[in-house]
């Protein structure tokens, strides 16, 4: 068996979710190859080659792959897939965008966001916003799968010594082009990779009050998150949303402030190692998953917490 894993990277470096996806691939068994498709992506390719458990790294370095346009990368992956028994990608924005396109081109029913590998053809995945876990079996000869990174440990980023091969084929579908991007610029750790996350919900009342969260997050070197209610109310931008339809996080410490704990939100953070909830409603569902609950007015508690840290 041989498995192709699509690396998540920004050309300069490999993203952590790739290492978790390699763990899922190793659980399926066989030779693991990593594809780094990008532009000026040699640095990310070198990091990929150092990852534990990777036998070979394929580098497709061309301007057409610069912005991870699904049409172009899916074309490349579909060609490469002929030599593999399975194609895996982390269930990141890119993975979700690209992999169904690959699956349809290969006439394969893809499996989305698996959280465990039961055997080489049987997997578990959450459905109904994480209210239910389904065990599913695929009879497709080739498997196409996205992997929920937080459900798997990461392989070591060093110690590997994979062969590196440069690909020269270029697939340009010619139907899409990149215009611009606005990426949040922040000194904080990335939400899905942070060891500590501090999130605010509807209880924050407005966007200005997120400054209170920011102060605490600064002290803890934490990433900032938000519930869907806070995002929908326009307090903070969408890329801060933690939940089934936002980002799935599993940090060492998750602090939920003014978040009631809708199932949608719990699905995005309940695998965190330690959960702290601060809410003035002592019956809020968030307390049923919290290791440490503090029933308090957040406008009093957050400045106190800031001072105590």
């Amino acid at each position, binding site marked *: 068996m041989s498995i192709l894993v699509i690396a998540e990277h920004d050309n300069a470096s490999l993203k952590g979710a790739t290492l978790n996806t390699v763990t899922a691939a190793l659980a399926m068994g066989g030779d693991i190859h990593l594809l780094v498709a990008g532009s000026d992506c040699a640095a990310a390719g070198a990091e990929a080659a150092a990852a534990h458990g990777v036998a070979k790294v394929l580098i497709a370095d061309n301007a057409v792959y610069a912005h991870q346009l699904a049409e172009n990368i899916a074309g490349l992956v579909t060609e490469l897939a002929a030599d593999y028994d399975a194609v895996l990608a982390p269930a990141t924005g890119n993975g979700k965008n690209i992999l169904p396109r690959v699956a349809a081109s290969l006439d394969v029913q893809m499996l989305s966001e698996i959280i465990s590998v039961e055997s080489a053809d049987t997997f578990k995945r959450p459905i109904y916003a994480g209210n239910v876990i389904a065990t599913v079996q695929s009879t497709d000869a080739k498997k196409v799968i996205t992997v929920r990174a937080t459900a798997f440990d990461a392989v070591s980023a060093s110690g590997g010594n994979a062969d590196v091969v440069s690909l020269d084929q270029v697939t340009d579908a010619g139907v899409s082009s990149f215009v*611009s991007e606005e990426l949040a610029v922040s000194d904080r750790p990335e939400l899905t990779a942070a060891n500590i996350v501090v999130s605010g919900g509807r209880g924050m009342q407005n966007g200005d009050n997120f400054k209170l969260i920011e102060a605490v997050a600064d002290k803890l070197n934490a990433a900032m998150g938000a519930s869907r209610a806070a995002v929908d109310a326009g307090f903070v931008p969408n890329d801060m949303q933690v939940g089934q339809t936002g980002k799935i996080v599993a940090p060492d*410490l998750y602090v939920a402030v003014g978040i009631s704990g809708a199932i949608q939100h719990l699905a995005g953070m309940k695998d965190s190692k330690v959960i702290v909830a601060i809410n003035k409603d002592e019956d809020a569902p968030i307390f049923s998953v919290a290791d440490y609950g503090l029933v308090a007015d957040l406008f009093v508690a957050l400045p106190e917490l800031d001072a105590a840290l």
Partner: protein
Amino acid sequence: MKVLVAIKRVVDYNVKVRPKADGSDVELNNVKMSLNPFCEIAVEEAVRLKEAGTASEIIAVSIGPKVVQEQLRTALALGADRAIMVETDSEPQPLGVAKLLKAIVDKESPDLIILGKQSIDGDNNQTGQMLAALAGIGQGTFASNIEVADSTLNVTREVDGGLQTVTLTLPAVVTTDLRLNEPRYASLPNIMKAKKKPLDIFTPDDLAVNLTNTVSMIKVEPPAERQAGIKVASVDELVEKLKNEAKVI
């Protein structure tokens, strides 16, 4: 231009779904069904394009047993001009849905196809991308804004670190994210009018699509429960516990 909107009937988002006692599937008897929230956003976007004079006709499509007509009537009440149902006994998987939609796309030749980014039952997030692949056209997934130019479409997409804008050649597929728009409610007169709008019915055989499911559900179970911990009385106690007991700060 002609806009095709694909919609799905799903368990209402307020229902807390549970596995059946035998774990074979989820309990769907006597459960309220609705239009998938992301599909509501898709219909709304099409209606806004028509109101702006950009779209000339909106066709709503749904796939499934006869009851999906209820959701098609909802789409008609919201502003779709006509509806197409592809009647199937059971619910096809996303690849099957994409193949059926591709057959409808071939029949209707729409300029733009709008779908929800995922349905809140299967949470697959696949159908739009698969349809784009089968049709050999571009895709603007997780859209938070779209702008139609002559023969192209600018789509602003919600990506992990923020927003990305791409230009797609039309025809193209767009999948909606939550912030694309806020859907309206259907008015009573429009609900009455929707009953008279045309609704065509096809079978997979009519469309020459062979549906084979290659993924089977072995069992469903509730997620692992997390035990509630303790309540602390003060911020100082919380910080003390996090430092000395949990050792996470």
